[in-house]
């Protein structure tokens, strides 16, 4: 009778501690105003711009202009939450030839270095992991304030979908869908504390 009672807390305490540590916000982390933020993209389909966005994603952003070494940006994007022209195309893009969300549900970006370019412009270097492929990317952003004093970071970069094996097989012809996909990110942070 005593053994389980002893064993339970001995396991539970470190687990609980671990959970608390994981849940605790990173020092200086700022809540991204998700409703005002967006991750969109545009590619050309048979010569016509087709836009989309992700409905669900998480971000962990620490932005300290005075201490860029301690600043960072991390994103987890729920690929199945994609918003496209129709349910038909959303179903297709979740499939194996495109994102294969059953196997690779999340795209992850983690910054490695943030460079101040002056004039409220920055360059975020980091690694993007998409469909099991990890590649270094650089995202230039411009910072400004909206009417409410929120800090708005806007940037875009061009992603080559075939680098990540996105749109293979019958979709690999870039005359149907361009290889270049322009990703536009708009991240809104509350005013600096």
């Amino acid at each position: 009778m005593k053994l389980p009672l002893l064993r339970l807390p001995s396991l539970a305490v470190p687990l609980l501690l671990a959970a608390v540590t994981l849940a605790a916000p990173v020092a200086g982390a700022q809540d991204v105003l998700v409703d005002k933020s967006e991750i969109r993209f545009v590619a050309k389909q048979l010569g016509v711009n087709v836009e989309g966005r992700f409905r669900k994603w998480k971000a962990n952003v620490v932005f300290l202009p005075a201490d860029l070494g301690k600043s960072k940006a991390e994103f987890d994007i729920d690929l199945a939450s994609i918003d496209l022209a129709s349910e038909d195309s959303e179903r297709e893009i979740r499939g194996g030839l495109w994102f294969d969300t059953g196997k690779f549900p999340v795209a992850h970006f983690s910054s490695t270095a943030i460079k101040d370019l002056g004039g409220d412009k920055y360059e975020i270097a980091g690694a993007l992991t998409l469909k099991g492929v990890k590649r270094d990317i650089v995202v230039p952003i411009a910072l400004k304030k909206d009417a409410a004093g929120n800090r708005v970071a806007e940037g875009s970069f061009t992603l080559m979908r075939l680098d990540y094996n996105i749109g293979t097989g019958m979709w690999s012809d870039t005359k149907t869908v361009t290889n270049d996909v322009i990703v536009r990110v708009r991240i809104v942070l509350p005013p600096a504390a």
Partner: protein
Amino acid sequence: MIRFVSARYSGVAIALHWLTAALVFVNLTLGVSMVPLPLSPQKLQWYMWHKWVGITVFIVVCARLAWRATRRPPPHAAMPDWQRRAADGSHLAMYVLLTLVPISGWLYSSSTGIQVVYLGLFPLPDLVPKDRTLASVLKWTHYGLNSALFALVLVHVSAALKHHFIDRDGTLARMLPAAWTRSHS
């Protein structure tokens, strides 16, 4: 064999009529065939062609309306008054539908967030924003208007054939190229 042939439509009106008929036939066939296809590059290609043909119909119909507005069509052959009214009514309804069907398709495309770029060269403005609910409404509007157009085309063709083969009153000949009429009269 001598057959009474009433005054005919002008060459321009005849050419535009048969061009419309060919384009509508092609696009109804394309539309009905492409919708059930599983998503593929070929399906996207067919949708694109469908939009181009549809916009062409719109342009041709605008030209026809302009042409028609500035001249009188030939008189009807002798027929009961109700048939004359039915003919005029269905012609008017077809003009309305031939205008609304391409517009509804264009709006439907806009509402799915895909701009129509006519012939890959001329981007048409998106008159409505991307909206899933609106897209669903416009999709069924486009389908409904097409069903009505298809029904009217059946009535139109049946009536033309009835006038030609049963009444033998020269109604169809008014809309046939002169060369065709000569070689068959």
